[in-house]
């Protein structure tokens, strides 16, 4: 798929991987609806893309809030015409500093699930319908190593990402053959604000830069040969020839 001219919605686009992906896709000519809670940071990302001649709309909203789903999808459809690619990138880490499950408040787990699982489900539900009518569309789920491996103190986040992976696989199975595709990506450990919040003592030199991972993610989005329902690891990704 040539991303040029296509409508892409990215959640969590005000910083880290989401902001980097927005920059990469904008350079490739994608038309962007960017979603995040932080109005100022999001406005800066969208403003930089527009200043460089790209198209980016800043939709200030909370992915975890039920009554903000149609405001997000309605604004994106009105501004872009069609949302052809949806990237679920927004994540909530849970309690910081990371806590044992035994010390995690129920409300903290609920918030993590709302942002990382239920929000993406609602957004996909609202955007997959028009994609199914057009028989074309792509939904990308940004996952984590914590969805597969078990790390103490990553329980809320890991459980949410495991659920997100399974949601992605089930969407793919149910809508296989309709032209609407799904895949998940483990971006690996990146030098982001979220990583710093989770592991403040990490050696930042050992971490991938979000810009590098964003380039790989953009290649994946453009690659129609990725099997529906696949879960990819950015670290193992090599650019298609």
């Amino acid at each position, binding site marked *: 798929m040539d991303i040029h001219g296509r409508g892409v919605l990215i959640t969590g686009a005000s910083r880290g991987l989401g902001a980097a992906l927005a920059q990469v896709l904008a350079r490739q000519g994608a038309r962007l609806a960017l979603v995040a809670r932080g109005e100022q940071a999001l406005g800066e990302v969208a403003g930089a893309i527009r200043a460089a001649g790209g198209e980016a709309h800043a*939709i200030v909203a909370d992915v975890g*809030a*039920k009554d903000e789903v*149609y*405001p997000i999808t*309605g604004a994106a459809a*009105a501004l872009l*015409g069609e949302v052809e690619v949806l990237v679920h990138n927004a994540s909530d880490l849970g309690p910081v500093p990371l806590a044992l499950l035994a010390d995690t408040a129920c409300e903290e787990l609920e918030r993590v699930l709302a942002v990382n699982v239920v929000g993406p489900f609602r957004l996909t539900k609202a955007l997959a319908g028009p994609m*199914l*009518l057009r028989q074309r569309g792509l939904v990308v789920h940004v996952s984590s190593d914590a969805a597969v491996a078990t790390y103490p103190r990553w329980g809320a986040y890991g459980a949410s990402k495991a659920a997100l992976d399974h949601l992605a696989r089930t969407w793919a199975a149910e809508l296989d053959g309709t032209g609407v595709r799904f895949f998940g990506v483990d971006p690996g450990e990146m030098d982001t604000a979220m990583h710093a919040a989770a592991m403040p003592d990490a050696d930042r030199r050992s971490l991938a830069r979000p810009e590098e991972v964003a380039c790989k993610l953009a290649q994946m989005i453009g690659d129609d040969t990725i099997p529906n329902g696949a879960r990819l690891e950015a670290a193992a990704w090599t650019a298609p020839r």
Partner: protein
Amino acid sequence: MKPAAWPRGDPGATRLLHVDPAAHESSGRRGLVDGRIGDLRLLLREGDLLVVNDAATLPASLRGVTEAGVPVEVRLVGSGRGGAAGDGEAGVDDEDGGGGCWRAALFGAGDWRQRTEDRPPPPALGAGEELRFEAAVARGEDDGPGRPGRPLRATIASVDARSPRLVSLCFAARGAALWRALYRAGRPVQYAHTARPLALWQVQTAYAARPWAVEAPSAGLALSWELLLDLRRRGVAIARVTHAAGLSSTGDGELDAHLPLAERYEVPAATVLAVAAARRRGGRVVAVGTTAARALEGDARSHRGRLVAGAGTTGLRLGPAMRRRVVDGILTGMHDPGTSHFALLESFAPRALLLEAHAFAAERGYLGHEFGDAMLILDNGPEVRALRRRASTAAA
């Protein structure tokens, strides 16, 4: 007919009355079969084409105050400035909410709980008057967490010659900021037959895309993806138009007489191809809802009878004298005799049959209005006999 007061939890439970004008005419049989929405699997056949209206429904009801502090309800009618001169044509501006300008109808004190015709007239407002709208959440009408919302402001650009209640309104915000403010300030348009305040997701079809409709394209509310994907597997094609479904009532008899106002629509190139393919294969084109039918027929009428891809506006009123160019049948809600929607259906079946169908459905407990039951007006094919046999077996 009794109205449905609330959205159905399970769209599959929607009842479907098949009205078969050909059977009625040729054999003098009644041509009415009582079933469920899922019977579309039998009533439609390979090669047929279902055309839906993919417009999402806007939160088009905004509560505001005038400069003098008088409360006023504004219901958006359609984006663009048009119609101010009373020419019946909607202006089509950019995608971005008509550059921030919309046609809108004004309502006086009260809200949807009163019948629109019982509400007092709105304050008389002239061009230049500024309105301020508060966020719906701040009024405690939503379940959502209280969010700080900036007040949305708009200026009346002009008043329509047809009615002082119909104005052109230009919002101060633009782009994503305008959409955010509209979604915060607005609620779905609803009427007195509904039981409680509606949430925005309750007025969306399963395939809602661009937010063009100010009332739900409600015939599509009965369609689940389970059913649509099953129809596709059976060889029924599904295509889309986008039609900016307008208000069905303003409470002002003079203005209501002009409804539906000219509404904008778009027919994608893929839909033109799908209609041609259905024709080639001997399939039938079935519009889901009166808005999809108006977009298709209005577009053909604008192009000498040929369906042409593109955007436009149509003020077309279908009726008994109307010769259809594109649409063979229609899936629609139950409409009461005397309404404009009922008159529209006379383009698909004779009035006598429609009256009979209405009485038949009312007697069997069908529900009317936007969350009610459905009716398919489509000439019979052999497949329907199986359904009829099944119905008679069940009765025996």
